[in-house]
């Protein structure tokens, strides 16, 4: 695969291949010397047009563990307001002879443009674009699900038959989109729980079961529940009345957590709004894998960068 732009176009074999490479990267993490020389001499640009601490640091850690040279480029706000277009920036990077770009952008489709507009000819990794996709997040979630549910037997496996519940602001969530496509590709049954105001139009044609009742979805004892971050500006735009009401109907409250069976793992892409979409009881519980997600994020991003830069076979997004 040359680029990683979305999970929608990722085939099952390639996805499992990345997860298995990530397992190798994880094994490396237990050694004294955590660094691999795999990408020595390669220069990777982290092109971040949107604020992000955890994703950027996760990518940077992955790049450094693979011995790549790392350039961080942060641009607050849009490229247009900054005065240089995405095209000019891309062509500038190309002229500098860099080897790959990890891009986060508030505009949906910006990574697609970088990959397909002929502005530069290097692998592009989507680190989150607008409300479109966040494919490495979905891959690290899948990795964490495999690890939590299959343990040492994870290698080579999909997520066939697992029941996964995704809760919250599906409409604006690139994490939800990438997870929906990847989980379906890996064979999981996906249930989406959201207020109708935060449900994407046309979701009936997506490979998910939609319900507006979190209690019903949790009563079915799913294998995992993923809580999505709710952003405060959604309240001002009247997607729901107020934070208290959101937490009451759509939050993983302490009461809901206590009713949840021990076999359901709890996930969140972070950063969390404690007390809003998730209670501290749930977030800090033994069945929470939220910190494992962070740990695994580095391994999965190492696997993705390794795959796109060393030309591992199977073109994902072409």
């Amino acid at each position, binding site marked *: 695969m040359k680029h990683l732009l979305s999970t929608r176009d990722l085939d099952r074999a390639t996805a499992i291949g990345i997860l298995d490479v990530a397992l190798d990267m994880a094994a490396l993490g237990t050694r004294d010397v955590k660094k691999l020389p795999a990408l020595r001499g390669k220069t990777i640009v982290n092109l971040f047009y949107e604020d992000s601490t955890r994703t950027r640091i996760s990518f940077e850690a992955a790049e450094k563990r693979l011995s790549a040279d790392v350039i961080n480029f942060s641009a607050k706000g849009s490229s*247009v307001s900054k005065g240089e277009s995405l095209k000019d920036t891309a062509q500038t990077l190309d002229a500098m002879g860099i080897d790959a770009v990890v891009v986060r952008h508030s505009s*949906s489709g910006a990574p697609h*443009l970088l990959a397909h507009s002929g502005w530069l000819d290097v692998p592009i990794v989507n680190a989150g674009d*607008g*409300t479109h996709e966040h494919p490495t997040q979905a891959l690290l979630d899948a990795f964490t699900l495999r690890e939590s549910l299959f343990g040492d037997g994870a290698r080579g496996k999909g997520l066939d038959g697992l029941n996964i519940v995704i809760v919250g602001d599906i409409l604006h969530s690139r994490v939800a989109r990438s997870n929906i496509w990847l989980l379906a590709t890996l064979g999981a049954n996906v249930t989406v729980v959201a207020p109708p105001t935060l449900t994407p139009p046309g979701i009936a044609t997506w490979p998910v079961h939609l319900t507006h009742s979190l209690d019903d979805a949790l009563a079915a004892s799913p294998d995992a529940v993923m809580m999505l971050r709710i952003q405060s500006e959604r309240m001002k735009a009247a997607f729901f009345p107020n934070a208290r009401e959101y937490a009451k109907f759509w939050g993983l409250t302490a009461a809901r957590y206590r009713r949840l069976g021990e076999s359901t793992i709890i996930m969140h892409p972070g950063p969390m709004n404690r007390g809003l979409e998730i209670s501290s009881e749930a977030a800090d519980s033994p069945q929470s894998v939220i910190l494992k997600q962070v740990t695994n994020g580095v391994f999965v991003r190492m696997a993705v960068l390794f795959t796109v830069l060393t030309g591992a076979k199977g073109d994902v997004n072409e």
Partner: protein
Amino acid sequence: MSSEILITGASLMGESTADILLRDGVIAAVGAKLQAPGAHVIDAQGLIALPGLVDLHTHLREPGFEQSETVLTGSRAAAAGGFTTVFAMANTNPVADNAGVVEQVKRLGDEAGYVSVRPIGAVTVGLAGETLADLGSMATSRAKVSVFSDDGKCVHDSLLMRRAMEYVKSFGGVIAQHAQDPRLTIDAQMNEGEVSSRLGLNGWPAVAEESIIARDVLLAEHIGSRLHICHLSTAGSVDIIRSAKARGVDVTAEVTPHHLLLTEELAENYDARFKVNPPLRTAVDVQALRAAVADGTIDIVATDHAPHPHDTKDCEWDQASFGMVGLESALPIVNTTLVATGLLTWSDVARVLSQAPAQIGSLDGTRTLSVGEVADVVLFDPSTSREWSTDDVVSRSKNTPFTGVTLAGSVVHTIRHGYLTVTEGVVVDEDVVAQAGGFHG
């Protein structure tokens, strides 16, 4: 250039074959085997003769956005498309909300000489939707404004819309509404539906157009005013117009060529050439719009020619400009989508692209290629077909969405006021046209 043009063997609006003699800016004779020694002869065997096309919805961008288009360059693009009259939208800078600006635009059009430029006046000052612009002064100015529109923005305030529709009755004007509920389309990027959800682009729901049209036809019915609706894009809008017309409401409606051909899936590669307002919709909408032109629910095809510089399209979708150029491709698209499909005859094409828009815009003349009419004629070859490219775009901006699409037919000659503005498919030189326009204008 000779002041007489003899067109031989043309198919008059696709019906009878005849010669047409143009003299002193008018149609002097129509009939078989006309003789005119010394006349410039155009062999029009196999060509369809139509009255010069009238575009009720053009953005010429001047004053203020000359990097996109000027009255001159837009006029040339119009001539290339077979147009002899264009109505120029008011969203310039400064806005055409007073007599000074509309007179300037008209004068620039007269000087260029390719088409009659009829400025559209803004409904509200600065297109701000708050206070009425100088409607009467624009109507009685040398620009004789008869169509008023805040196009690009909706006259959203119900009371202001009512007052505007009532007030322009005093001088026979009409309000052309850009139907878009602003609250339902905050940061809207493309048609709302599964595709917008998948691409992560904010949706522009059909109901945001339909609810405004429904309101405005009710207002027009209540106060007994004329109303024109710009660029219908949805099947639901068609239903509302159809039922309003059945009740006798004095409403007219337009559709753009691009909404007759293109659908929302074109956004899938985030190529902003396909970003337009109202957005490309679904195949169901396209079929409903075509059927509505065929049954007369939609009165006219108008281009919404919207030039933009390359840089504002070669960027992230949500930061790109809305709009596409369309003057040059309008007649080939109408041919491809409506004539070749059997939905319209050439006589219908003369109606939707010339007679009806002229009537809505209060232009004189019947536009039936009859003796005594102004000599505005387009000769179209329906037998050719070609893959559209930016080379076919005459406009200063090249933001056509039709690159690579095979379109049927081409404009061969355009004649305005008895002189050629396009000959053998080539736009006539500026100096020649300006001189001819000055002589006859």
